[in-house]
């Protein structure tokens, strides 16, 4: 391990600002990509289900 303690780890030898900014951006980019991809697919599925219901209703009427 490169660090003695948790505060030592968080301080990153005086480079905390830069290291955590970079890793924070990394986490943000991953989260945004994950959520956006999931939303794209679930929205498509929702719309297809909705349209199918509408069509079924029309044929019944």
């Amino acid at each position: 391990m490169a660090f003695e303690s948790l505060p030592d780890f968080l301080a990153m030898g005086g480079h905390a600002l830069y290291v955590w900014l970079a890793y924070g951006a990394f986490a943000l980019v991953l989260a945004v990509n994950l959520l956006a991809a999931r939303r794209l697919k679930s929205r498509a599925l929702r719309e297809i289900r909705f349209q199918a219901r509408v069509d079924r209703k029309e044929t019944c009427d």
Partner: protein
Amino acid sequence: MGLKTFWHKLGSPRWFYGIANPWRVGFGLAAALLLSVGLVWALVYAPPDYQQGNAFRIFYIHVPSAMIAQSIYIGMGVAGLVLFVWRMKLADVAIAACLPVGMTMTALALFSGGVWGKPTWGTWWEWDGRTVSTLVLLFLYIGIYALRQAIMDPELRGKASALLAIVGTINIPIIKYSVDWWATLHQPATFTLTEKPAMPPEMYLPALVMALGLYSFVGYVILQRMQGLVLEREARTSWVRELAG
């Protein structure tokens, strides 16, 4: 299955949707495993650099994100070529799915580069060959994205974005050789196919794990997006309706 059958089957959105599932799950699992190992390794166990100290840890996200930003663009260029030569609709789906992922990865490469540059070079931004050509890469992603938003006709939209994707690949060798052509602050590549990295394994191995993890991650996200786009485009077909339930 032979290569020719595989190629032929890619023309079927339904077949692609099915085959993408196990691949997506595999990429997702690999990404979760590799990224968690890689992050702990890079942040906690890798030694600090003797000159840069702990700021060196930014390397573990900067280099993988830059590699992937370029790889995704090459992938888009290949998809553009496939679209032109074989008129495969799935290639257009691939371009559309790659765009936001590649764009954010390029932004991450630039941002982490700036954040790394400040403590090591003394500046957030340096107009050197590599940063500028990577900025061009970001503009190419944004440009193709804007183009797709602007063109309503799907046929024309596909062709125009494929063309721009192909033409833009000229920028990839420029990014690659920029550090050799213009001697600047930016250090040359750490990873090449022909030589061993000029750093000890305890420093480059975590970077390799992070890179493989990030490749798996974008594999997962791009396949997920492609599946979503296929569903949108095939919304009126019976197989999609059955699948949606």
